[in-house]
């Protein structure tokens, strides 16, 4: 896919279902294995939830812009917000043995994605980028099916 797919939603949890559906359609189109699809959708949903909770301080109508790039091997998503800039040194995944609100979504993202980065070099907000190699996932899913 040469052209990225862009979607902008208001920063309210009621729109998270929309972003999940669009991503599912996109991954279906690229014949992504079902389990990988679920994992990628979870990461994007958690990243957008973090923007709503921490970037904008709760549900509101500020923009969250998601840009999806899919090539044969690579999945990359960029989540742009215009809220409070995050200090990436303060973002810590919650230990799974210590389940409390906050940090579990970041744990999912770190567990699933290959690369994660936060860029705050802008006047307002954060550009959050997550990437994953799809080919590796595809191969392991094919091997699983052979067993």
């Amino acid at each position, binding site marked *: 896919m040469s052209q990225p797919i862009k979607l902008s939603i208001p920063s309210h949890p009621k729109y998270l279902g929309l972003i999940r559906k669009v991503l599912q359609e996109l991954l279906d189109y690229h014949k992504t294995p079902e389990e990988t699809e679920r994992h990628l959708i979870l990461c994007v949903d958690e990243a957008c939830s973090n923007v709503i909770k921490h970037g904008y301080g709760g549900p509101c109508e500020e923009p969250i812009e998601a840009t999806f790039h899919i090539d044969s091997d690579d999945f990359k998503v960029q989540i742009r917000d215009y809220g409070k800039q995050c200090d990436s040194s303060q973002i810590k995944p919650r230990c799974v043995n210590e*389940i409390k609100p906050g940090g579990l979504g970041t744990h999912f993202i770190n567990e699933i994605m290959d690369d994660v980065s936060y860029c705050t070099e802008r006047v307002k907000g954060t550009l959050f980028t997550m990437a994953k190699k799809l080919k590796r996932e595809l191969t392991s899913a094919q091997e699983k099916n052979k067993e």
Partner: protein
Amino acid sequence: MSSSTKVRDILAPLFQEYNKAIIVDLSGVSYIDSSGIVTLVEELQWSHSSQNKFRLVSLTPGVKDVFEITRLLTVFDTKEEALVG
């Protein structure tokens, strides 16, 4: 994220009103996020403190998957036999 508060509001009074096992049927839940997991963990902790049993049944692949990432499946009682008796 949008349903977690509603689920918490439904489940919390059950622990106070009923002195029995609470079984949550997740067959109609195709997706759960971290806030949903946290809500269910809170209810599990509540059940421990009130000495009630708390069980999850009929987990769909999407929900089971997220529990597996958290490695929490072993913490919850997810046996289908929980519905019997």
